[in-house]
C-alpha cells in the first residue's frame, strides 16, 4: 500500500479583510476566517485521486496554531485517513526552514512514497517549504507540477514553465511534488465525510515529541515590517475625452511591451 503525505497550511480566507497590524509585524488575524491554502487543496485532491484508484493511505500534516486543526478536519472530511497537527509556541516566529524541519521530523520515520505540497502559500508567497522539506529528507523534488502519472515506481510529471511552456520530467519514488493550482477539480467534503472525520486520528505533536527544540527552529529570516504601498505612487492617470484616452492607453500598453 502506498503511503502519501500531503502538507497543508491554513491561511486567511480569500474574502477576509486584511489589515496590517499597528506594529507592522503581520496582518491583523485575530478575528478573520481561515481556509486551506488554495495550492494545497489541489495537492490534497491529487493524493485523494491516487487513493480512489487503489490502495493508498493519505496522511495530512500541518504546522500551525490551534485554529489550524479545522483545516485538518476539512481534509479528513474530504477523505484523508489521518492527520498530524504540529504546534509549539516556539514555532510562532519561525520561517520556512523551521516549518520544513518540523515537517521533516514528523515524516522521517513514516517512509512516505510520495509527499505532496502546494507550490507556495497564499499568505507568505515564499515557495520554499516543499523543496526544503525534500532536501531535509534527502529525496528528489519537483515544483509547479500540473500533471502527474504514476508508473511502476516512477512518477512522470508535467511542470509549468514561463510563458505557458510545459516540461516533462520523471522522478523515482520516494519524492516530493509541489503542485500548481487548477490542475484538477477539488472535491467538496460530503456530509458523511464530515461525520467520519470525527472518528479519524488527529495526532498533536510539539517540538519535544519530534525530537526538536526551540533553537532548531529559530528563524534565520525575520520579517521587519509589512506595509501597504502608498496610494498613487507609480500610477499615471490619463485624462481627456474617451477616444483620446483610449488611444493613449493603447500606446502606453505597446510602449511597455505588455501586448
Amino acid at each position, binding site marked *: 500500500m502506498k503511503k502519501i503525505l500531503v502538507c497543508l497550511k491554513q491561511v486567511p480566507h480569500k474574502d477576509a479583510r486584511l489589515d496590517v497590524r499597528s506594529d507592522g509585524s503581520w496582518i491583523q488575524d485575530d478575528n478573520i476566517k481561515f481556509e486551506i491554502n488554495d495550492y494545497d487543496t489541489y495537492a490534497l485532491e491529487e493524493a485523494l485521486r491516487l487513493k480512489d484508484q487503489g490502495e493508498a493511505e493519505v496522511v495530512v500534516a500541518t504546522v500551525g496554531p490551534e485554529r489550524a486543526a*479545522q483545516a485538518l*478536519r476539512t481534509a479528513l472530511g474530504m477523505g484523508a485517513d489521518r492527520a498530524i497537527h504540529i504546534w509549539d509556541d516556539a514555532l510562532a516566529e519561525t520561517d520556512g526552514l523551521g516549518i520544513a524541519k518540523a515537517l521533516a521530523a514528523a515524516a522521517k520515520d513514516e517512509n512516505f512514497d510520495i509527499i505532496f505540497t502546494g507550490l507556495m502559500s497564499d499568505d507568505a508567497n515564499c515557495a520554499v517549504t516543499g523543496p526544503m522539506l525534500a532536501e531535509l529528507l534527502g529525496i528528489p523534488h519537483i515544483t509547479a507540477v500540473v500533471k502527474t502519472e504514476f508508473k511502476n515506481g516512477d512518477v512522470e510529471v508535467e511542470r509549468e514553465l514561463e510563458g505557458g511552456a510545459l516540461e516533462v520530467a520523471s522522478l523515482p519514488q520516494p519524492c516530493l511534488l509541489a503542485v500548481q493550482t487548477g490542475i484538477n477539480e477539488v472535491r*467538496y*467534503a460530503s*456530509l458523511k465525510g*464530515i461525520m467520519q*472525520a470525527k472518528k479519524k486520528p488527529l495526532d498533536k505533536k510539539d517540538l519535544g515529541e519530534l525530537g526538536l527544540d526551540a533553537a532548531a527552529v529559530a528563524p534565520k529570516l525575520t520579517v521587519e515590517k509589512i506595509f501597504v504601498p502608498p496610494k498613487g505612487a507609480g500610477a499615471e492617470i490619463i485624462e481627456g475625452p474617451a477616444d483620446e484616452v483610449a488611444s493613449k492607453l493603447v500606446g502606453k500598453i505597446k510602449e511597455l511591451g505588455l501586448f
Partner: protein
Amino acid sequence: MDFAPDPELRAIEQEVQKLAATFGDDYWLDHDERKAFPWEFYRAFAAGGWMGTIIPEKYGGAGLGVLAAGTLLRAVAGSAGAMNAGSTLHLSIFGMGPVIHHGSEAMKQRYLPPTATGELHVSFGVTEDDAGTDTSRIRTFARRDGDRFIVSGKKVWNTKAQQAQKILLLVRTTPREECAKPLDGMTLLLADLDPAYCEIREILKLGRNAVNSNEVFIHDLPVPSEDVVGEVGRGFYQLLDGINPERIMLAAEAVGIGRRALELAVAYAKQRVVFDRPIGQNQAIAHPLADSHSELEAADLLWQSAAWAYDHGDRSGGKTNIAKLRAAEAGFRACDRALQTFGGFGYAREFHVERYWREARLLRLAPISQEMALNHIAEHVLGLPRSY
C-alpha cells in the same frame, strides 16, 4: 454555557458555503426569471449527502439534529440562491420529520433512504384556501374503502408539487363536528402525487420563482392503509414534528438571507461615491446596516437556542416561535435596508438585492405568519387568554 463554535458545525458551514458559492447570482437570477427548477444545484447537494442530514443513520442519513440542519440551511440561504436555494432543499431535509418520528418500520425503510439520497421528492400538503391558518377547518377528506382510503379535496401552496412523487397530506378522516376537540380527527398520509387523480396548477407569485408553489386538486385518490403516517385521527399532532423543525430552519434561513443582503450592501456602501464620499460614511446609511447586523446576530442566537432545545427533547414551541418571529423581521429588514443602500440600483434586477427582498418578505407570512407566532407566544409563553 459554552459559546465556542462546534468544530463539526463549522465544518458543515464551511463546506456548504463552498459548494453553494459555485452557484452565483446570475445562475439564480436566470432560474428565478425562467421559473426553472435548479436541478444542478439540487443534484450537487444530493450528491454530497446533505438531504439526509436529520434522517437516522440506519436509513441512510447522517442522524444529526435540527441545529446541524439549521447550520446547513443558513449557509444555503446565505448564498446567492437565498430562499430559492433554501426551498430547493429544505422540504427534503425536514419534510419527512413526521415519518421519522411516527412512520411504521416498513414506511421508514421504504421512503427514508431515497429521501436521503435525494431521489424522492415529497411535497407538504397542509394549507387549504378556506381553512387558512385555522387548520382544524380543512376539508380534504379521506373516506375508508376496505384497506385503503379514497381522498378528495383541494390543497394550496404546495411547494415543489411539480417535482414531488409523494405528498405528505393532512386530511380529515372524521368531520370536525364529530370530534371532541377541533384538532382531532385528522390523519396524515404519505400519498402518491398521482397525476391520474391530482391536478397541479402553479401559483404566480412575488418571488422565489425558481421553486414552484401550487394548487393541488385531488379527485378520488386511492391511498393504501400502509401509507398512513402513525395513527388515524392523530395526524395534526404528528405533523408538529415537521412544523417545529421547519420554523426553526426557516429562522436560520432568514438569518442567512439577511446576512447575504447586508454583505452586498456593506460592500456597495464602501465603494459607491456620491457627494465626494462613500455613501457608507453617512450615518444614515451606516447605522441601519449596523443595526441590522446586530439584529441578525441576536436572531442567530435565538434560532440556535430553539434548535438546541428541540434536539434535547423540548417540544413546547415557545422558543421556536420566538426565533421565527425575530429572525423573519431581522432578515426582511436587512434586505430592505440593503435595497435602500443601493438606491435606485437596488430596484434593478442585475444588482440582486431586490430578489433577496422579495424572497425575504415571504418569511413574515410562511410557514407561519408573524401574527400567529405572536398568538403562540402570548398564549403559551405569557399565559394570556387565547384570542381566537
